[in-house]
């Protein structure tokens, strides 16, 4: 009789693994940058090409670096949440506008709102390559000492924020909003 139970047994095992598999991310390849100093960069500001923005802009602070582009429809999906984060998240967000057209990018920020303290303009992807970006959107969490604490590929969502980012930010600086490290460090 047991042989008729075998198929359902196999199905239960497979379904069990699938259920576990859903909480894993096969696309997640740990970034070699995590735990290492973030690559230094300095680029023109998207909104004012004569000014610059780069790693120095957020030195000593916990910051998010968000890679975005107007051709990336998933970026459009995450945009409202980034706006929300910029108002209440307690962490400054720096944009890295990647492989994009400046006029379109400016129009995007005008219509959808600008969550970024400043966006770097990287039309050729030179900085994005250093950062190991191969898809947008990507969001990096940078610690006060400039190390990459975490990297998230695909749109930022409230769940990802609560699960992956908040605990790391709290571990880094206790409570929000994060205060910059005192200069004597």
């Amino acid at each position, binding site marked *: 009789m047991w042989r008729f139970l075998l198929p359902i047994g196999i199905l239960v095992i*497979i379904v069990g*693994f*699938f259920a576990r598999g859903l909480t894993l991310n*096969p696309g997640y390849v740990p970034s070699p940058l995590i735990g290492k100093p973030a690559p230094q960069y300095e680029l023109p500001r998207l909104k004012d090409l004569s000014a610059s923005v780069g790693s120095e802009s957020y030195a000593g602070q916990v910051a998010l670096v968000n890679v975005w582009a107007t051709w990336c*429809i998933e970026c459009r999906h995450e945009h409202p949440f980034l706006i929300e984060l910029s108002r209440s998240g307690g962490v400054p967000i720096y944009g890295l506008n990647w492989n994009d057209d400046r006029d379109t990018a400016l129009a995007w920020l005008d219509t959808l709102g600008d969550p970024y303290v400043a966006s770097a303009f990287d039309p050729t992807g030179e900085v994005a390559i250093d950062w190991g970006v191969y898809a947008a959107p990507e969001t990096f969490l940078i610690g006060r000492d400039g190390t990459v604490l975490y990297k998230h590929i695909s749109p930022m969502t409230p769940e990802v924020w609560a699960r992956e980012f908040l605990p790391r930010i709290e571990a880094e600086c206790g409570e929000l909003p994060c205060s910059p490290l005192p200069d004597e460090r």
Partner: protein
Amino acid sequence: MIPELGQVALILALSLALVQATLPIAGAALQRADWMALARPTAIGQFVFVGLAFGVLATAFLGDDFSVLYVAMHSNSALPSLYKFTAVWGGHEGSLLLWLMILATWTMLVAVASRSLPEELAARVLGVLGIVSVGLLLFTLLTSNPFERLFPAAFDGNDLNPLLQDPAMAIHPPILYTGYVGFAVPFAFAVAALLSSRLNKDWARWTRPWAISAWMFLTVGIALGSWWAYYELGWGGWWFWDPVENASFMPWLAGTALLHSLAVTERRGIFKSWTILLAIMAFSLSLLGTFLTRSGVLISVHSFASDPARGLFILALISTISGGALVLYALRAGRMGAEGGFRLVSRESFLLLNNILLVVAVAAVLFGTLYPLFLDALDLGKISVGPPYFNTVFLIPTLPLVLFMGAGMHATWKSMSGETLARKLVIPAGVAVLLGVLVPWIIFRGASVLTMVGVSLGFWVIGAALLEPVQRMLASNHAATVLSRAQWGMTLAHLGVGIFILGATITSSYNIETDRSVRPGDRWEVGGYEFVFRGTRDFDGVNYSAVEGEFEVRRNGSLVTIMTPEKRIYRVQRSPMTEAAIDAGWSRDLFVALGEPLGDGAWSVRVQVKPLIRFIWLGALIMAFGGLLAATDPRYRRRKVAHEARVGAGASPESV
């Protein structure tokens, strides 16, 4: 307003599906004829409403309605009209709607063709199809609504993935899905048999054409997918053991076993629990295919949509549909008595081996596909399982399978003396081994043991398939009538397997691949052909810009062809695409793909010479054509009439 109409149509289809999934099955159990009678009208109504929803979505695509999110994400005003239409299934939501559309079509066909079936069986079969439909309609409406609006509307769309802007991709998904979803019908018949605890030869005869049809579509769909991957992905491979390919191959293997098991059940009234299990397996593996491609638990070149919430839903769907069927199987399969026995040397034995070996092959592919997930889930690390595993492990069950296949075709039912069988086959076997050794050595000047085994097996199956018709034709004047249509179907399908084996073996053994960097004017030799790189030029396509390389191919000094591979950049998505140039031929394909520009007019270039690669797809098409002949055998229609004529009669006469 019109997109909302599509959504309303889906909701109406769901209401009908709910009725179809419940009352007819309850009616069959309670002997309520009025409830059972609801099965057909609800099935047909559902077809109408799902068709309406599908039409609405297609209209939105053709009319560039970018206020619909799904359209904005998968189309663009500059996209050619054909691709605007095929973009309907270019993403997750639309693929699901296509799935539903095909399920509704199969269900409608069953409803129309089931008038000759016993009322209870028809009600149960349609009811089970209704359950499947409810699950997928809920899935679509709750997690993947294709009619969701985008506000404000996008100015233009995000364009269709350039990989999918291709004529083969236009027909690949519908055909593949027709195969996948078609296995819902034998599945429904199997569950209906379990519900009633009754399964006889008539049941097998009713189920068989449906199973063969689904199998036929799946065969063509897989072959098209392989062909598409060959010329569109730009790597020159024809099978990658990618999770999504495996997802279509596993139901095919289970479906192949099902066809053979059904033959035994129809003819001899045995292997009943095997047949039911295989029917459940084939459809469960089809659902699994949907899960693998849609959930993101495994990454693959084909996964265009993935989302854990959807994955969870599909998982619940598999648990309910397959789990429910398998629980029923555990409870009821023991009651399906066998109607006869058979001896060790008999066709039944060979078909039993066939069932076992095919199931082992499914298990091997399933294990390899899921192994990375198993390890990841157990926190043992991240790995990927590639062709080395599959190529080795897959051969273990399939080598004996092919060996027995040739013999099985010539074994008689019930029993046969081993000596007679051996005497019949000794000559074809000898010829096959001889050809298997000679052909590779004479044509390709060398062969490994595995190559010789492969070529011998190819010739063995071809010889075994043709032995009977050739002998009969020699003895008779009417060539076409010596075999019944179903027998021609079997012969052709097996012939196709032999041709496929020859193609796959020769291509894998003697394929020549070279990657090199070349400058305009360079000449070099690959596999007896001289290639000359004449340079590149830029040009603009409808919705892309491209660089086109020009290669002159010569053999023994005379021009064979000029090949022009392209490198395209699609304007909207900015993804680079490699359009390989292929010079196709019966004996070999020449394949040239442009790699990257290396500066100063130099390019990296991949050139391949692939002998007999066309045999791979030709073999598959011949198999499918065999399926077409078998599925349309007149006896399936004749029996329906005969059945009506002898309502209440007992066992049917033996079929051929």
